């Protein structure tokens, strides 16, 4: 029996149950972390502190300080709002040719023996 369960971002349908598909345990936590990181502060109603403010950096010039700030934002967000995960390492690599930033986050999730790596690509959406 799963410890954590949430419905899927895509509202996908379970192929056999025809009910809404679930994400459980590690997948649920990773989905939660991604949601938090891609949420700006002030975006959630009546909860102005929830979010990471990463999107605010979209139009900033990419400098070594940007890497530090990104790591800081990610670390703070997970620490404040996701009690099920602990950050082990964060790697931020700019991909200038594709105008994106590759983020790899190594986290330890409660009730899981092994650390989990999650990948996040920060890019403009339009």
């Amino acid at each position, binding site marked *: 029996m*799963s*410890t*954590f*369960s*949430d*419905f*899927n*971002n895509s509202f996908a349908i379970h192929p056999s149950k025809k009910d809404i598909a*679930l994400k459980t345990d590690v997948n*649920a936590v990773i*989905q*939660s*972390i991604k*949601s*938090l990181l891609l*949420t700006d502060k002030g975006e*959630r*109603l*009546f*909860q102005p502190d*929830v979010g990471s403010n990463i999107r605010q950096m979209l139009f900033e010039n990419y400098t070594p300080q940007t890497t530090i700030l990104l790591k800081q934002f990610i670390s703070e967000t997970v620490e404040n*709002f*996701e*009690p*099920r995960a602990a950050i082990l390492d964060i790697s931020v690599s700019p991909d200038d040719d594709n105008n994106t930033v590759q983020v790899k986050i190594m986290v330890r999730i409660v009730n899981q023996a092994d650390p989990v790596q999650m990948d996040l690509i920060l890019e403009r959406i339009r």
Partner: protein
Amino acid sequence: MANTTLSVANVDFGTLKSSYKTYLQGQTLFKDFDFTGSNLNVLLDVMSYNTYMNNFYLNMVAAESFLDSAVLRDSVVSHAKTLNYLPSSYTSSKATINITITPDDAPAAISLPKYTAFTAMVDSNTYTFSTNEGITIQADANGAYYVNNLDVFEGEIVTELYQVNTANTSQRFVLNNKEIDIDSLIVNVTESTTNLANANYTRSLNTVGMDGESNNYFIVPSENELYEIQFGDGVLGRNLSHGNVIEAKYRRAAANNADSASVFSLAGDIQGYTNVAVTTVSSSVGGGYNESIESIKFNAPKSITVQDRLVTVNDYKTLLRQAFNDIQAINVYGGEELSPPLFGKVVISVDLANADGISDQRKEDIMEYVKDRAPLSISPVVVNPEFLYVDVTTEVVYNPNVTVKSDEEVKSSVVAALKTYTNVSIGDFDSKLRLSKLSRAIDDADPAIINNNTVIRLQKSIVPTIGTPGSFTLNFDNEIYREIPQNNNFVDGTAPISSSTFTFGNLINCFLRDDGSGVIQIVQDSQGVVQVVSSAVGSIDYTTGVVQIFDLNVSAYSGAGITLTAMPTNQTVSSSKNIILSYNSTPHITITQERI
């Protein structure tokens, strides 16, 4: 069965979301509802926000559904309408003038048409006043053409036309100006644009005595501070026909902005004559704004109990305040309470805003209004209010170690506190001033104040004519302290009744005082020695506080009059009938420091 698990009757987002979470604790399918980043948590945000908005909306709808809690004017007016209450409109300033026309020929008569316009300036703004009736002026025996005591009313004359369209079942006749003075509204209905037969319709407040042929209209409040005219249905009041043309003519008033106009001149001409002299009998007064939301909420429920009839004291107060929006304070009592009694009279004492008392013209207006609504055997008397002033003497002790304020600054705080307290507690009919509470207000004026020793006295003034004997009656309306002087001296050096100084004959520094046995004397203070100059010029009833002075003939006095000061027996002073207890705003304050 009632839902005891999910409580959504709340307008706090956090509480709503919390109740959803509590509800979700009862299931095991979605377990992440309490983690901020989960999709389910985001969904709870949306649901909580939606519930919050619905609850807020319903709360507002419910609030607007009751007269007590409604805040929007349209809602309040709508509730008032169900109580048959008509919120008072803007009112025109009214002035009274005399006009004299000097024609260059000798006509048999000169016609002064209705709405003849005059202009007047107030604060650099020009306002138009006009007559509200037509007059024919005949030459007098000397060939002079004049009208005395002509009432003129401020306001631009507006005419609105509507054509009745019975095919339009939702047609309404809403007058377009919120500044309308509805007392000036005149409604005429013409048969059609081609058949000019017309009839004047009169305003009706109710349907009593009305039938299908009655040429009446009703005026009711509408949205956005406007008014709407309505006509009968053929049973109660004549029903309008298709093609009828309604003409509504009224004044658009500038409220009290046009009050105090005192110089008037004719705008245009009167029957071609322009040599017209205008003199002012009384300056313009009585302009007012339409009734406020708070006032409608206060008056509407009371109005329905009054039913446009003046029977009880509260009927008078409610209806008169509603009809004359420049009334600041009003008291009403029966003539049997007077001494000597005046049976069959109702005494109405009125203080108008921005004026001490009430003009003769306004008195007549009020009496006219009352006569139509009071029982047959009752006749109204409108009287000026009397002002009974409270004089405050206080010794204030404060600790300079706990404040950086100087003596003068502490004094200023005390002055301000006195003003605030008296503004709230007195300044109206039937008011009381309690010394203990006044004393507390002084203590609370500044944290550094340790204590105070305060005395209140009552003051009234008389204005004698120099060199002419005059009699005066002053009602202090409170029991006066009685003290028998020992060897012509009072304990604190002042008699319970004493006055400001005046010259009597050729004796300066004379003043009035009581002798402790109910007699008012004139005494002279000659270098600290008090001598009786006239042993009996009046009397005092210590119990009722009525002082009478007979044939007082003074040679001179300073200021606007002679002020009599009385020491009340009780530490609570009050006023009744037509007396307004008021603060004289000149406290005697002594400041003392005590370092603790």
